[in-house]
């Protein structure tokens, strides 16, 4: 059994569904809307989405689990997306990812290219781009963020 959504979360999911169900190919826009509203797409959002789009829950789950972008659990810490593609890799991106993971100060997620390849290595911290990144600069960024 999936955990039911809190009333607030359910209201947010229903709002997104109502706004976007009329779109052609509405499932991805709805999943994006839910993740934008709640920070992730909880399992409890699947049944109402499936019902609204006349899809099976398996179909919605299949799409949700196919795409790397969709998160099924709320991230505990600030999300740091670290590029692992060739350009960043050749400029120290792998060491940067290892450093981020070891720091325990962020939810480090791999990503394959942020389009900042001339200034590798690059990361997105909570959606904000930072390039020519080093372990020291990353620590400073995370500290500044923690300090608010």
């Amino acid at each position, binding site marked *: 059994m999936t955990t039911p959504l809190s009333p607030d979360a359910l209201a947010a999911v229903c709002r997104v569904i109502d706004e976007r169900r009329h*779109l*052609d*190919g*509405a*499932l*991805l*826009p709805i*999943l*994006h809307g839910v993740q934008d509203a709640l920070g992730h797409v909880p399992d409890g959002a699947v049944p109402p989405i499936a019902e609204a*789009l006349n899809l099976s829950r398996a179909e919605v789950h*299949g*799409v949700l689990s*196919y*795409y*790397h*972008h*969709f998160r099924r659990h709320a991230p505990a810490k600030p999300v740091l*997306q670290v*590029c692992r*593609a*060739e*350009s*960043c*890799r*050749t*400029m120290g991106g792998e060491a940067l990812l290892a450093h981020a993971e070891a720091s325990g100060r962020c939810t480090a997620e791999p*990503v*394959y*290219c*942020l*389009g*900042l*390849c*001339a*200034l*590798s290595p*690059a990361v*997105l911290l909570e*959606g*904000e*781009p*930072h*390039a*020519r990144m080093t372990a020291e600069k990353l620590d400073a960024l995370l500290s500044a963020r923690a300090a608010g």
Partner: protein
Amino acid sequence: MSALTLYLPRDAAALAVGAEGVAGALAAEAARRGIALQLVRTGSRGLLWLEPLVELLTPEGRIAFGPVQAADVAPLFEAGWPAAHPLCLGPVERIPALQRQRRLSFARCGAVDPLSLADHEAHGGWAGLRQAVSLAPEAIVQQVLDAGLRGRGGAAFPAGIKWRTVAQAPAKRKYVVCNADEGDSGTFADRMLMEGDPLLLIEGMAIAALAVGADQGFVYIRSEYPHALRTMEAALALAREAGALGASMLGSGRAFDIELRMGAGSYVCGEETAMLESLEGKRGMVRAKPPLPAVSGLFGQPTVVNNVLTFAAVPTILAQGPAFYAGFGAGRSRGTLPFQLAGNVRRGGLYELPFGLSLRELVFDWGGGTASGRPVKAIQVGGPLGAYVPEAQWDLPLDYDAYAAAGLVLGHGGIVVHDDTANLAELARFAMEFCAIESCGKCTPCRIGSTRGAEVITRIVHGPAKAQQVQLLRELCDTMVHGSLCAMGGMTPYPVLSALDHYPQDFGL
């Protein structure tokens, strides 16, 4: 000094190296000094090693300063932005790396406020669409054919032939879809264009709609590009306001509008049929071809699918004539390509140039060699599915056919430079691992072959029976090349085999 006009990019690459901090410092310092500052936020000129690049408007034109950090701002004001300042680069148009380019699609990018209709008009915007409105649909297609425009997404298929197929397909509804799922490492031209001149892309798509008789368009933008998405969203509203989109495009009586859709972190959705599936709200699984999308594409309807740069080239062709556009280039690769230099390179950025120069010129003359100062070892051209090009091939002309004849791919024009510390066996294994992560799973050579490929490469590097494993890897690659449904599995062997062939020492061979 009582009033000052400055230009500063809002491009994600400029933001990533501190442009927002510079903007804040400029505003604060101007206020402190009682100077009325007009700060125009632009796209990027693409000289990314100079970002954040600040341009100062003077009676003699714009003077560039870069790279400017927030801490440089107060001293620059104090000194009065003098030409003798160490950060001063002189008139921006005369920076050699900009002046020597041939910017057709990126002419406005970095120069104008991307969200100003007045700027757009003043710099030749909508001229291509106006011309298209005055032509019959077949004449538009003919101009695109005559210009020799080939798809810039990587496959280099003649755009005019695709458009003609859609135009001639009988259907109640047709679509124009822009593939902005720019997932290749080392590429950022689509992103820069959408952030720096989004109205150009809209104009190109509108021309395509007139040519094929479509009334609905989609732009599929990857989720890794949140800034491009926001800029495009705002640009669409402006285009509707200007009457370029809507019930009657520029008074033509023809309706066309565009919707934005966001990808969700799937590399294979850059493949056109996987992208169409994704647009339909499904898993991004590749479709078997035929039918071609031009015959049965989005929601089963005839669909033009082109890359951002393909659409962006079209307004120039219409406005200046196909002969003008075809006057650039080499062989059957006509026009210009925005080359993107990345990785371990000193002057990384975007250089729009006619096809035909060599990789050596691009990486050394334009790029200045490696950022690390060490020797260049390998250059990957064409994204993660492109080959590692060894020095023996650095003098080939960069055009689609010369590259294809040598077993290489130009792709989307992304170039990633590696110095002599790179381990090509590791990069080859990464190519297989990446394919395993991103494979849609529909065909076996890609789904299973990628995982087995990574294992075999590990065994070549660490195991005893190297010769046998090398043979196994070659046979596996042969299966992937010939048995995969799309380029994901079909071209992952390019980086793998080129690494093996040209850098065997990295595999312990």
